[in-house]
């Protein structure tokens, strides 16, 4: 398997990893209305947590526990849960735009900690030589990628199934109630603060899971992976796909990442060689333009939120 098929497998691994992040953001923003602008921070905690637990022992580093990959990912997720709990307790009383600013700042801080806490994260050098799970069992990189796509697809499917089950439960209706009218929810004897915290932690843990899967695939992690642009990309995926809809989250992740990645391929194909050094700028403009056009023609995203009306209403 080579050529476009091999690339497509590779592409889908990354896109589906992002789809898990987008679903995490969707439960926060799409269902509950929590404006988390620090997505990349929790993605980073999951990635670093996994990398530190799975990595080989090195003299100059604190970490390097050499744990099996699934345990390391679980550890990364646990770390994410803890971080989200602390951040959530501190910030969730803030309303939308204030919460956005606070979480954005926290994500930058997390990236700066990764950049500067050299003995734990390797600093700007990053953590190298991380083992890729079961890599030795496969003869060809294509075979391995196919296997890893399976892993990521199963994880994304599980997350989708779990979230769909959750949002259809009474707890899921509570999320929308909190989003639409917190006072009304409180008047019915619910505790919105607690719901917001639960959802925040849940969403961030999913981002951490994706971070762990990313590390397993790339085998390397550095602070450059966690620039604020990634938060923007994730948000673009959710908005374009359709927030408040988990299928929209997946479609958005795949679609926007396709646009981001494949526009470069298209430009390198169709642009005369002499203009190649301008191709990068054209690509960025094209990405922006297509996102704007999508939103003009599909303001609720490609697949918007399904209307939910009480079965008793006529």
């Amino acid at each position, binding site marked *: 398997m*080579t*050529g*476009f098929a*091999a*690339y*497509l497998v*590779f*592409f889908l691994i*990354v896109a589906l990893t992002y789809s898990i992040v987008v679903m995490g953001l969707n439960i926060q923003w799409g269902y509950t209305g929590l404006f988390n602008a620090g997505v990349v921070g929790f993605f980073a905690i999951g990635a670093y947590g996994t990398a530190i637990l799975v990595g080989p022992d090195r003299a100059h580093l604190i970490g390097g526990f050499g744990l099996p990959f699934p345990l390391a990912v679980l550890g990364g997720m646990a770390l994410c849960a803890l971080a989200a709990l602390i951040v959530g307790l501190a910030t969730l009383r803030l309303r939308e735009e204030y919460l956005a600013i606070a979480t954005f700042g926290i994500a930058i801080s997390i990236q*700066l900690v990764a*950049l*500067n806490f*050299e003995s734990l994260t*390797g*600093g*700007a*050098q*990053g953590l*190298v*030589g991380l083992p890729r799970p079961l890599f030795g069992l496969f003869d060809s*990189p294509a075979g*391995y990628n196919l296997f890893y796509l399976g892993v990521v697809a199963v994880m994304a499917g599980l997350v989708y199934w779990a979230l769909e089950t959750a949002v259809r439960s009474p707890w899921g209706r509570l999320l929308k109630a909190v989003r639409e009218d917190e006072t009304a929810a409180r008047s019915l004897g619910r505790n919105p603060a607690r719901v917001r915290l639960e959802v925040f932690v849940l969403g961030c843990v999913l981002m951490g899971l994706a971070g762990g899967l990313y590390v397993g*695939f*790339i*085998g*390397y992690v*550095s*602070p*450059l*992976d966690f*620039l604020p*642009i*990634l938060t923007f990309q994730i948000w673009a995926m959710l908005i374009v796909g359709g927030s408040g809809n988990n299928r929209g989250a997946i*479609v958005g992740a795949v*679609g926007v990442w*396709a646009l*981001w*990645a*494949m526009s*470069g*391929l*298209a430009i*390198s*194909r169709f642009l005369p*060689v002499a203009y*190649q*050094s*301008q*191709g*990068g*700028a054209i*690509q*960025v403009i094209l990405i922006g333009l297509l996102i704007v056009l999508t939103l003009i023609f*599909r303001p609720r995203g*490609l*697949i918007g939120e399904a209307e939910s009306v009480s079965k008793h209403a006529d």
Partner: protein
Amino acid sequence: MKSMIASGLMGAGLVLSGAASAQAQDCKIAVGSVLSITGSMAAIGSAIGDAGKLAIDHFNEAGGVNGCEVNFILRDDQGSPNVGVDAAKTLVEIEKVPVLLGAIQSGVSLPILTSVTVPAKVTQISCCSSAPSFTELAREGGTQGYWFRTLPTDRPQAAVLATIAAEKGYKKIAVIHVNSDYGVSLATRFRDDAEKLGIEVTGVTPYNQEQASYRAEVNAALQAEPDALFLVAFPADGATVAREWISFGGSQNLILSNALRADEFVESVGAQYLENAYGIDNAQVEGESVEAFNTSWKDAKGSDPNGPGLHVMYDAAAVALLAMEQAGEADGTAIRDNIRKVTGGEGEPIYPGAEGFKKAKTLIAEGKPIRYVGATGPITFDENGDVTGPYLIYGVKDGELATLDRWDKARVEAALEKLQ
């Protein structure tokens, strides 16, 4: 809507695979490159791409590789690893490149190496990634020999700069560095070396890129009243730091990292403030090979090749193509195994430019050994894919960048030995 997207993607796939088979019939060899054309390295990225393209143009002028025309495909990584990795993967899988030139930042080159080029057995040659982690990875066997870089690592650079600082009699030096793998590693090595030579390093202050002002960092570094500043930066941010440093009364004894050897930096700081400054860069040792590159750059671009990464990028491309010619096939593993056959050694020297490559092709056809002496002078790769090379010391004279001194390999090694 979803099915529309799916069919659109499949359509694109058909078009792409059609284009790939058409190319093979014309006998074209694709050489891929991933560089930062936009993003934080944009100021230097596209010129570096031009340097790579120049080498490929020269080779095509000389008749191509193994009779095939070489097609240079440049992709942008936007300064992000995720975009860079994806671009590299398309180059390897769809364009079928046997060799990948890039990336600029180590944080982009490394994930490409571990997740794309090494698994696909494609040789990767970087012009500009200086992080020591590549050497570490190569020692552990993680690169399987597919990794090369044409710029020397920062170990000798720090040693030479510290030795000169000691010769100049600086007693207290402050360090301000860009907080990246490149900056951290060069700054800490310089501190270690300077301290061994009896110089007090008053502080090592990192700065984060692309800020409007670095007053806080500059003030922190000024506190201890150092008599010189070692600045590790890229041109745009570096100019901001240097301007603020001088306007707050900092010493004009500046020590500059290699990336600051750019006209842009001198112009925006002001040449009159840089007369006491010196910096290091990979030497274009005097001689025909360097002149050959400089002249052909001037012919093509109409300006002098002043800027980080140009000479090293040309050499990265040239080494790849010569190895391909020597191997007789465009295959990643064959390129890896032939790179050391066309560099170092005792063969006939080959200089940059179409004439040089023509000569190389004739000699290779006759089965005679060649030795590429590139835009950065002679090149020898060690077992980890690193080069050690000669250096030049640059400064500003009469308002322009000028070469003040040259350090050949023997002198560099003597300085390194003293610091062991």
